[in-house]
């Protein structure tokens, strides 16, 4: 199995005025291609910071990060932008779709920044919408879609550039139980089709959908189900 990402001794310290606040204090783990990983932890455990670093939205203070065989911890802002564009698909808790913009145009957004020609863009965005079962809603704007549908558009946007992995940050946090199940089903089927999914959540029943579970506490990785340590809060 190919290794998608490897974090080695990743640390992140925020400087607030005179004070240094450590958010991550040396985290190491690897994710293989095709894995479905849930990262759990209380708020302040460092799971979100770890997610941002994995998503190349933030840079670690120390440690090395290899994504898809390439070190990315020392890249410039624009190089990171390119990595986010080509290698990573993001799904957020708050959907983060552009307002007053159609589902299709939202899904096209990453492709615009990949400089893909218009016709190819449309074609691939429609295919991605089709994968989440929203091909018939392509022209609807966010306000015309339900929460679950908006999150599906966001998933289509994450998938459209065929990234190495999909990172989901509390993807069901704003949704009711039934809709959450729908979204989790989509992630499960994506994973079954070969996609690597890494998800941050604090809900144990959502985490239970994932094949592997990691637990963060106080900036450290304290349990990894792959190593036989079942996380317990």
């Amino acid at each position, binding site marked *: 199995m190919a290794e998608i990402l490897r974090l080695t001794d990743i640390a992140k310290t925020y400087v607030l005025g005179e004070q240094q606040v450590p958010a991550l204090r040396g985290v190491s783990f690897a994710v293989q291609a095709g894995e479905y990983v849930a990262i759990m932890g209380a708020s302040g455990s460092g799971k979100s910071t770890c997610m*941002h670093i994995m*998503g190349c*939205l*933030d840079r670690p203070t120390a440690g090395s990060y290899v994504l898809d065989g390439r070190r990315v911890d020392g890249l410039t*802002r*624009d190089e990171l*932008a*390119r990595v*986010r*564009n*080509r290698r990573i698909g*993001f799904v*957020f808790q708050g959907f*983060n*779709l*552009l*307002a*007053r*913009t159609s589902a299709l*145009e939202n899904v096209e*957004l*990453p492709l*615009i*920044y*990949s*400089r893909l020609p218009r016709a190819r863009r449309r074609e691939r965005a429609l295919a991605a919408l089709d994968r989440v079962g929203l091909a018939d809603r392509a022209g609807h704007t966010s306000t015309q879609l339900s929460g679950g549908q908006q999150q599906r558009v966001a998933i289509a*946007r994450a998938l459209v*550039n065929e990234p190495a992995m999909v990172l989901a940050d509390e993807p069901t946090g704003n949704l009711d139980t039934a809709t959450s199940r729908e979204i989790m089903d989509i992630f499960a089927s994506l994973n079954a089709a070969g996609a690597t999914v890494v998800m941050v959540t604090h809900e144990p029943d959502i985490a239970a959908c994932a094949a592997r579970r990691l637990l963060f506490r106080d900036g450290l990785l304290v349990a990894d189900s792959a190593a036989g340590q079942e996380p317990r809060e």
Partner: protein
Amino acid sequence: MDLLLPASIALRALRVNTARSFLTMLGIIIGIAAVIVMVAVGTGASRRIADQIASMGSNLLIALPGSTTSGGIRGGFGSLPTLTYGDVEAVRTECPAVILAAPEQRGTAQAIAGNVNWSTVVYGATTDMFSIREWSLASGRFLTQAESEGLGKVCVLGQTVAQELFGGLDPVGQSLRLNSIPFTVVGLLAPKGRNAMGHDQDDVIFAPIRTAQTKLFGNPMPDRVGVILIQARSQGLMDEAQRQVEALLDQRHRIGPAKERDYSLRNLTEIMSAAQESSRTMALLLGAVASVSLVVGGIGIMNIMLVSVTERTREIGIRISVGATQQDIMLQFLAEAVLLTLAGGVLGIGLGAAGAVVLNTLLGWHSVVSGSAIALAVAFSSAVGVFFGFYPARKAANLDPIEALRRE
């Protein structure tokens, strides 16, 4: 660098919020329209003065009979006709800087054609006068050389007189009576309009000067002329011509330390040029004032763009998270600002041009929308866009994606 992409992203972003985009543009629209109208009014005014200078005759000096003193009482200019036909001839032949000199005698007469009558100004003139004053013909011909020197009863009409006496008909070949003396109309002049003082230059009849003096005005001194029109060979020779004519007339009139000049020489072009210069300054001033409104409009755009960056922090965060580079974001916001100002510029040009037309038709102003004013407005408005768009664009491009996404 691919500029089409940021432009299309910007266009999409502007379309999403049409009302705000339009309100933002309003400042620039009004600014550009103000510049266009002000420059048009200024240009129109100075062009009008230039036309009036041309209608008076170019490179023109006028010799007026001067004041005379008799028994200690000084008369004003023109109190005694001191200029003679001999002076005219001498000026023409003996001053190298002078190309033409023509006598002119002004008077008034009652013109009658059929059952219509009209009181008007009659100029006793010669054929050269038409050339010096730059008249052109609408029909017929000017006075000939022979008619100018003889006592023929022929005349040339201005448009206003022809209109009053003959209606829309061509007066050439018709006859009319001036102070009861029958004259034949041989020519009709093309219209010149009003002069700088608002005087209708077309309300005029030209007759041979000797005929006018003897038959119409009853001049007691038939060898004298009213004024002498003198045309210099070129603009550059105006001063030279003035010196030569003064020297010649001083000599002919025996002007010396003991005798006051009995004529005066006026350079009307100079006066008009000064008027034109002041109207040009006025136009510049108007343009400058209007430019201030453009700058204010630009600051308005900057404000809205700054508000827009704050308001759209989340959107920027989303764009960054899916892979927009700093340059992508920067160019998008710059393109938005430039598109807003350019669109505002185009609408402003339309509004300004319409405003100029309204001024022309409602107030009878002669404003002229010039291509250079339009080019200036467009250049200025896109410069305003780049200049005032830069700061908000940079602010947007430097946003931290995590912070930006967290913002509601």
